């Protein structure tokens, strides 16, 4: 059986595409991936999604979207896509041994937290190294923590962690934050937060649990061993495009390229929506909007093929 529309990914972009495609009687098949619901699953309060004047919890918002997509007949598979073949039509999308065939594909695989790639990081993940303050902050009551990064996400994480930690030190490689001024002010004014400017992590230390990090000042090259019970990495995101890299055009940062103003990728019949193609806005509501565009683009395109 060949699917009309196959959607890869289940964040706001994928689920909105599913809602629109399902309501257009295209009976979409969604391969939701292991990071089901996407980045909002690790977000607490969402205060800027329209329609929720009192805010909404990220996981709750995603559960509601998922129900809405299912209500109109979206079928969902809970695994990661392992390979795709967009070189001929119908396209094929594989999940391990299982292969699905589709006339059109919407890619909304989003972006995932980037890691530092330093010694100790992978070994100590789950033992004091984390990329999710909302998931793991709870385990660091009265502990001393490092937050690596200087963007909005890093500063949000630092502020969130002050609820638990006795002290939070932000390590940032530049001499000013990239984050919005309101976030920067909150961090700089916070009594529990210190900032190490012009500094990078060379190694995360610890035997079975994190005990600290080797921090290097990029101006002086001086390296110090900094004591900490946890290291939270928040240095941005990488688009999840590895599985498409040899099939679709990507930009130099790995984002899927689309024709301006549309969701068309470099292969006709394959559409992209959300953070996998958007490095500018990256909001739940913009991702949802692009998901809608992708569903409408694919619907129109399928119609033209018939």
């Amino acid at each position: 059986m060949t699917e009309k529309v196959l959607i890869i990914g289940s964040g706001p972009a994928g689920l909105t595409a599913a809602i629109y495609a399902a309501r257009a009687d295209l009976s979409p098949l969604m391969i939701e991936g292991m990071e089901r619901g996407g980045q909002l699953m690790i977000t607490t309060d969402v205060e800027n999604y329209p329609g929720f004047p009192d805010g909404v919890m990220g996981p709750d918002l995603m559960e509601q979207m998922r129900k809405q997509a299912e209500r109109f007949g979206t079928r969902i598979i809970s695994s990661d896509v392992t390979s795709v073949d967009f070189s001929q039509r119908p396209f094929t999308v594989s999940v391990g041994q299982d292969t699905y065939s589709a006339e059109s594909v919407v890619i909304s695989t989003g972006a995932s937290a980037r890691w530092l790639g330093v010694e100790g990081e992978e070994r100590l993940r789950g033992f004091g190294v984390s990329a999710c303050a909302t998931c793991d902050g709870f385990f660091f009551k009265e502990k001393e923590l490092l937050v690596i990064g200087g963007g909005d996400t890093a500063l949000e994480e630092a502020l969130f962690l002050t609820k638990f930690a006795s002290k939070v030190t932000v390590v940032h490689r530049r001499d000013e934050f990239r984050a919005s001024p309101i976030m920067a002010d909150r961090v700089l004014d916070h009594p529990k937060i210190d900032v190490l400017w012009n500094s990078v992590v060379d190694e995360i230390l610890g035997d079975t649990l994190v005990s600290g990090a080797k921090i290097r000042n990029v101006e002086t090259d001086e390296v110090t061993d900094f004591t900490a019970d946890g290291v939270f990495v928040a240095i941005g995101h990488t688009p999840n495009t590895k599985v498409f890299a040899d099939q679709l055009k990507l930009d130099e940062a790995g984002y899927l390229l689309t024709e301006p103003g549309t969701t068309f990728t470099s292969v006709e019949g394959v559409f992209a929506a959300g953070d996998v193609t958007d490095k500018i806005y990256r909001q739940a509501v913009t991702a949802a909007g692009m998901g809608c565009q992708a569903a409408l683009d694919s619907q129109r395109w399928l119609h033209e093929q018939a």
Partner: protein
Amino acid sequence: MGQNTTTVTDADFASTISSDTPTLVDFWAEWCGPCKIMDGPLDEIAGENDGKLTVAKLNVDENPTTMSAYGVMSIPTLIIFQGGEEKRRFVGARSKNQLTTELSDFLS
């Protein structure tokens, strides 16, 4: 909560894991998005391995003693116990297939 999994607390933790039947304990919390992803797969695994494996859920908010005794610092964390001893530990959400493969040593 699934119908095939059980709930374990600080009070009955020791007796639950002392069984010779392997027990998979899922450390979770209400506020943990990735933990919710595990609910379905864990319930199915428990149902398919009835009698061979016990799947018990431990809420870390309500059971801090067990959580800190096992040094859990990230959830979801899944620990497999047999005869009271920790046999293996998995940190982070994973698919049903992946988990089934990882558990295969204990399901024979």
